[in-house]
């Protein structure tokens, strides 16, 4: 990761997520930026979700589809007026399909400073089973 040391960050618009279904509440939906990497033991997913509190984050696993759904409450007070507005706030939503190698019962999630760290341990390699052919 040495190449990031001196790189200057570029401003980027948030990616708007294709809404999965009609929203009941109006407002933009964004797809969080994620890093996914894999080691021998587990797959780790990191997602940037600034403004999401742990209570407002729903991680749902249903039929191998992992859904991240983070609600954001605007930090702005009611009597504040805009001076400059460069980014929008809204909920985060993104779905991933998990493969069979993930031990779905042991997934761990941790949210700190707006970054979600999701650990998806791999299933222990199934012991190879040899089927003996019987001859008569």
């Amino acid at each position, binding site marked *: *990761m040495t190449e*990031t040391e*001196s*790189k*200057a*960050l*570029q*401003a*980027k*618009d948030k990616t708007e997520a294709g809404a999965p279904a009609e929203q009941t509440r109006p407002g933009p939906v964004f797809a969080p*930026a*994620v*890093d*996914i*990497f*894999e*080691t*021998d033991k587990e*797959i*780790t997913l*990191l997602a*940037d*979700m*600034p*403004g*999401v*509190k742990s209570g407002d984050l729903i991680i749902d696993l249903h039929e191998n589809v992992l859904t991240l759904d983070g609600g954001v409450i605007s*930090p*702005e*007070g009611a*009597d*504040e*007026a*805009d*001076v*400059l*507005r*460069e*980014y*929008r706030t809204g909920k985060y939503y993104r779905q991933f399909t998990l493969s069979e190698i993930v031990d779905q019962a042991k997934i761990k999630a941790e949210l*700190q*400073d*707006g*970054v979600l760290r999701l650990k998806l341990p791999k299933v222990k390699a199934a012991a190879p089973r040899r089927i003996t052919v019987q001859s008569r």
Partner: protein
Amino acid sequence: MLLLRRPYHWPTSGWGYPFEELERVKRQMDLMNTALFRAPSGETAAGVFPMMNVTEDRDSYYVRAELPGMKADDLAISVTGNSISISGERKLAVEDAKAQYHRREREGGTFNRIVSLPTQIDTGKVEAHCTDGVLTVALPKAEAAKPRRIAVK
């Protein structure tokens, strides 16, 4: 008498592409939509990281920026007169060297941004805090810059 408006591209013989006019109208509507409702980014944004939202109430300005994963210690914030400067470095934690990446969308790097505010601020009372990856800096307006009600005698 029945008058039919005939767009000039309309084929006079045969139906080449009867929906062309509709398509054109749709394109115009889309343009109008983006111009009207496609909010902030683009024209007003300076294009410098981090993107900021600035709001004000009667007493203060509030500068906010989304900096996920950053702690207050990683940031250098300084205030002078009517401008605020925020700089820092977003470091992405070095993960296991053997890790194989499937996706890498998050970015790390340095940044430095200065924003000018419309009025002078009380530099002694500026407060900054980072919660859930969102930086909020509260900058109280200088006494001289606050709106004052003048009693009519």
